[in-house]
């Protein structure tokens, strides 16, 4: 009769794995309030009666640094955030995002792409997306099937 069985040994590992996962999941690694290491740029979407409002924090971005496009219900924001022209060795601290970034967002359905408006002020991007008028449900006539 085997004293050591692999099957049970792995079970113990699985238990450990689960335990570690649980522990990690319960921990909050983010420094409270510090906006570090997040997806850049962060995006919010709000729904109004007749439109959606998409906002994004893009500090330091100018209109010319930003590229917006929309196709097949996907809105793509693209840009490049250049750092100040100083050698890396001069940095004492570097928390701000730099470099190329891109985000593609699935738009809620029924948005009028032509009516889209965007404005960028003080590093905040606001995009207004008008909702398409509600389509009235179409009745499908049902014919009685013959014998």
């Amino acid at each position: 009769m085997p004293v050591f069985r692999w099957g049970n040994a792995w079970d113990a590992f699985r238990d450990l794995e689960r335990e570690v996962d649980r522990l990690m999941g319960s921990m909050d690694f983010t420094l409270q309030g510090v906006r570090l290491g997040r997806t850049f740029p962060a995006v919010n979407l709000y729904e109004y009666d007749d439109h959606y409002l998409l906002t994004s924090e893009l500090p330091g971005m100018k209109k010319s640094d930003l590229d917006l496009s929309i196709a097949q219900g996907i809105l793509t924001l693209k840009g490049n955030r250049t750092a100040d022209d100083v050698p890396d060795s001069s940095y004492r601290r570097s928390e701000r995002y730099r470099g190329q970034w891109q985000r593609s967002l699935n738009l809620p359905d029924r948005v009028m792409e032509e009516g889209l408006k965007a404005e960028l002020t003080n590093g905040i991007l606001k995009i207004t997306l008008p909702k398409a008028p509600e389509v009235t449900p179409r009745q499908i006539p049902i014919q009685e099937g013959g014998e």
Partner: protein
Amino acid sequence: MNNELVPQNNPEQSLPSPGDSSEQRLMFTPPIDIYESEEGLVLVADLPGVTLENLELQVQDNKLTLFGRVNRYVPEGLMGQHEEYGVGDFLRSFILSDEVDHERISAKLNHGVLRVILPKASRGEPRKINIDEGE
């Protein structure tokens, strides 16, 4: 280790009193860069949504505090369908050393990015101290 400018992680300090205290406001610590340049140390902070009127930059004793108010630009009480960030004010403070010339600190705000230039204090010429001969 250089310590002319030491960022503090203390958002729970006494906040500049907002106009309407009944209003619940969020406070965030903005990400910053600090680098050395010919002009001195440069502090760069991301303050999206902060305008010049709503930005306070203060040096008191050896503490530099930046506080930027963000006017709410999203609907009150309406939860976002999808929210990745909260809209609130920005606060961060730093300890300055005597190496920084407190009088010549200058700042610029551009597209929601603040740049503060902290020139190094010029070291005075060595002064000769006269020694009187004792009796």
